[in-house]
């Protein structure tokens, strides 16, 4: 199917009367977040992120030689990015072949990470970013960016800043931070945002659903707040280099 996953009209209560969400969070609360660094021996850099029930692993290889060579650029490194969902990562088994959604996300994730990297330092090389979503629970693209940025740092690639990302959603006409699978599936909107937090620059911005102009403004603010928190976890993870791939 082309396009976004269909949103059923099923009447699910995503926001309770007391203002808490389906998983008990407050509207501006992000899910438990854990980032492990250097979890894969072969990769030059790697990270494993658990955001809520999301489990995503990222490997970075490079800077290394480009094959085929004609893709290389004389004045800077190229970035290649593959975002892929394991067939078992979602409730209904997904075909392992890349979907149109995965093709688009590979592109926007690459474009979200590139601004942070000093590409001109590594002419004629490639930096390859491989993202495997092992379990999907909503907001996988932003969690992938968050983890990939840490993996790039783990690979020792010089960066202007980390890139941290979060999605703002909308349920019952109210903005929520870091939407989960149900809020994505049955909610009214999804606005994934990535930033270089120290520089205050947005590197990824997408949206579906309906947002009023003032909601866009509020969403950017809310995202910034969430991104600060995520940024701190990233930095902490890189400091501690906690590198376990244990799942529990």
């Amino acid at each position, binding site marked *: 199917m*082309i396009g976004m996953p*269909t949103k059923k009209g099923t009447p699910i209560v995503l926001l309770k009367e007391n203002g808490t969400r389906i998983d008990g969070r407050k509207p501006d609360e992000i899910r438990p977040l854990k980032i492990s660094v250097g979890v894969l021996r072969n990769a030059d850099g790697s990270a494993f992120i658990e955001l809520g029930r999301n489990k995503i692993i990222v490997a970075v290889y490079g800077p290394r030689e480009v094959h085929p060579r004609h893709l290389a650029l004389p004045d800077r490194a190229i970035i290649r990015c593959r975002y892929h969902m394991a067939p078992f990562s979602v409730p209904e088994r997904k075909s392992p072949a890349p979907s*149109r959604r995965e093709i688009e996300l590979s592109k*926007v994730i690459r474009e979200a990470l590139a601004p942070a990297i000093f590409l001109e330092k590594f002419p004629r090389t490639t930096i390859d970013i491989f993202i495997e979503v092992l379990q999907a629970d909503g907001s996988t693209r932003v969690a992938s960016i968050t983890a990939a940025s840490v993996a790039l740092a783990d690979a020792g690639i010089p960066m202007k800043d980390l890139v941290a990302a979060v999605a703002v959603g909308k349920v019952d006409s109210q903005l929520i931070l870091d939407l989960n699978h149900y809020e994505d599936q049955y909610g009214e909107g999804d606005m994934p945002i990535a930033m270089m937090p120290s520089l205050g620059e*947005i590197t990824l911005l997408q*949206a579906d659903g*309906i947002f009023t102009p003032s909601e866009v403004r509020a969403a*950017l*603010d809310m995202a910034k707040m969430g991104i600060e928190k995520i940024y701190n976890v990233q930095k902490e993870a890189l400091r501690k280099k906690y590198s376990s791939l244990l799942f529990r």
Partner: protein
Amino acid sequence: MSAPEKIIPTVKKNTILLMLEKGERLDGRKLDEIRKIKIETDVIGNAEGSAIVHLGNTIVIAGVKLNIVTPYADTPNQGVQIVNAELIPLASPVFEPGPPGEDDVELSRVIDRALRSVKAIDLDKLVIIPGKKVWAVYIDIYALNHSGNLIDASMLASIAALLTAKKPKIELVNDQIKKLDEREKLPITDIPVTVTFAKIGDKLVVDPEYEEELIMDARLTFGITSNGNICALQKGLCGTFKPSLILEALEIARKVADEYRNYIKSFIQI
């Protein structure tokens, strides 16, 4: 693709940059000014709906085809919407033959989301036999001449084709579907448009020409509904945006959206 085509001479690049500093553009437009638009509809008799859009020198054609299909298992009571855009090498020396790449896919999906978010096509009204038979609406988009800003041109062509599409009426006789000669409009509930900016240095220009796209750092697209809300956002390329710049762009986008929509209304009886 011959490499030279994608490179802009340094002199021209500098000219563009210098002019932008003064709020001017190569083709004389203001930074927030869109190009002239011409829309023709019902150009393809074999399609249920069709439109050809000239946005300056950019030309895009969109065709709407209708099929009766089995609905998706998870939306048994909704019609099906499929958007397919192809950047064919006919339209530009920078497009290569072969199966759709990431640019084709991104374009398709941005148009698809803008339509879907505002439920521009009321899919609930396209059910023939609930859970069994529904209408599928295919929107196929082909760029014929790429002179910048294919997203907005594709969106205009898509919505113009949808607004003028005619669906055969249906009669159900003992669960047998019979297409009647009589025709009716598709259930279109909104006229979303997209407004795309190129960010060049720290300047934003709306509806970029191809040469502006060649030197832009980033691209930013707003999907805007009839009442001025946002139904899609898409940042492209490797540049970045301050949040404040996005909010500025949003205000311009809402004004430009009305201009786009006025063009649509000037060509189509709605």
